[in-house]
């Protein structure tokens, strides 16, 4: 269980100059002014050590990231996957993100260093376009509002 009232951080991963990769930062930007004052909002490029630093000591860390889905299934841009890791030793389903070193590396590093948050929730938004440029594709832009609401629900749930 999440420790009620413990530190909460929301982390948006991505690069707004890689189109849909900017989904994570867009969600965090939309949360300003909508979260309790003690909830930290931050963005990062996904480099594992920075991620680990960002969530170290948090009772709840909520990560929002755009992902490319690997495997035989056709991508469904804008589709959101919610993953919850709430016990040491559990690992994230591997996602092929646009970052050289991914979220799963950060989780592995945090596990090795015993620096996992009390609970880690990942909202992964399937990207449609990761080419150079600004602006989200319509389905990913639509998902930003959905995920922002889901993040607020996660925060509310952690305080209950």
């Amino acid at each position, binding site marked *: 269980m999440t420790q009620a009232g413990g530190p909460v951080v929301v982390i948006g991963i991505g690069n*707004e100059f890689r189109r849909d990769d900017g989904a994570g930062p867009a969600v965090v930007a939309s949360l300003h002014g909508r979260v309790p004052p003690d909830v930290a909002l931050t963005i990062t490029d996904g480099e594992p050590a*920075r991620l680990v630093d960002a969530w170290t000591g948090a009772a709840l860390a909520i990560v929002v990231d755009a992902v490319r889905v690997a495997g035989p299934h056709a991508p469904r841009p804008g589709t959101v996957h919610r993953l919850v890791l709430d016990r040491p030793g559990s690992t994230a389903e591997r996602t092929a993100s646009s970052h*050289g070193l991914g979220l799963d590396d950060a989780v592995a590093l945090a596990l090795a260093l015993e620096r996992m948050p009390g609970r880690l929730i990942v909202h992964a938004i399937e990207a449609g376009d990761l080419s150079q440029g600004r602006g989200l594709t319509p389905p990913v832009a639509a998902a930003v509002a959905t995920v922002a609401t889901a993040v607020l629900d996660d925060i509310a749930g952690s305080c209950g």
Partner: protein
Amino acid sequence: MTHRNDRVLAVAELARVEGEGAMYIRASGDVVEEVRLDIYEPPRFFEAFLRGRGYAEPPDITARICGICPVAYQMSACAAIEDACGVTVYGTLADLRRLLYCGEWIESHALHIYLLHAPDFLGYASGIEMAADRRDIVERGLALKKAGNSIMEAVGGRAIHPVNVRIGGFYRVPTRAELAALAGPLRRALDDALATVRWVAGFEFPDHACGADMLALSLPGTYAIERGAVATLSGMRFGAAEFDEHVVEEHVPHSTALHAHLAGGGRYLTGPLARYSLNSSWLSPLARAAARDAGLGPACDNPFRSIIVRAVEVVYAVEEALRIIDGYQPPGRPAVEVRPRAGVGHGVTEAPRGTLYHRYQIGADGIITDARIVPPTSQNQAAIETDLHAFVQARMDLDDAELTRRCEQAIRNYDPCISCSTHFLNLTVDRS
């Protein structure tokens, strides 16, 4: 047609470089015939994106090219725009820029040393695997990295894509107390930095020399970071405005990036080895002593030993940061005024991975009409390929798996920043 004695080595994903990319090596019999490093280059996109934007925008826009070295992009952009506008930033504002740059060097070098490069020397498949075994060591590296981060947050506004840098200086300068708060952690970081030099000096290094010329900023009296003339080991010396004349970029068929060489045709290396070899005499006494104790002479041309040079540069950057913080008195204004005027400006600074050149042409209305960005990794590509050619040729007796592993390590010697100059890196070593 591939002959039976052809040998092609292909590694689809180069691990532990800043991003992804591809390498391909083909050998016929015992002779290496082809080495290719395939990269993709975001700066080309940004060059187009900058055209038509305002003259004050490049520091913020180009900082997004790379999450690891945004300060380098900001500093080269500021230098070039200010050059075009006839403004020189000096005094405390220049010191603050150097301080910010030291933060980036510390962070970038610590990341590369501990999580990307050291595992090669210690037989770990990754920094994460090493962390499981040597938690104390990796935590030391992360603490060092965090010290760099704290500088970037205090001076740059935040560690990722700093937002406080502007043409002419900063939007807001830190108070003396804000910088003084960094001194304690930096003094501890200095101990960690010295321990890092001692640690990496104990690694085993193959005998290997990169035969390329070397190029770095040089400024007598200091270890050049954010200003200076461009110098080469072969004796060239020129200002930023002459970079275009002396450094030629050309397309090569296998890469979307441009390969750079000196106008006379010579390939060259930029980055820690070049900086150290050209400027080691200007390091601080403590950093020089650390280098000497680690077995470095006044110059170093072994790319495997670049990990020691990076560690020495971290010692220097921490000391330099402490020096600037100790003497800091907030300036009267956070920035000098920079008015646009029609012209061309050039800026060169030393990113953690090497020399980063920006050139902007702006109109009297302040609109950018042309932009050119030459990142360090694309400058190093030709030298890396040539180095790998010789490296592989001397190790053709190794089996594919071991040769591939060694090649990946050899590439990581150069800390190629795929975020800057390449994106999806797939390494293929092919022999049949």
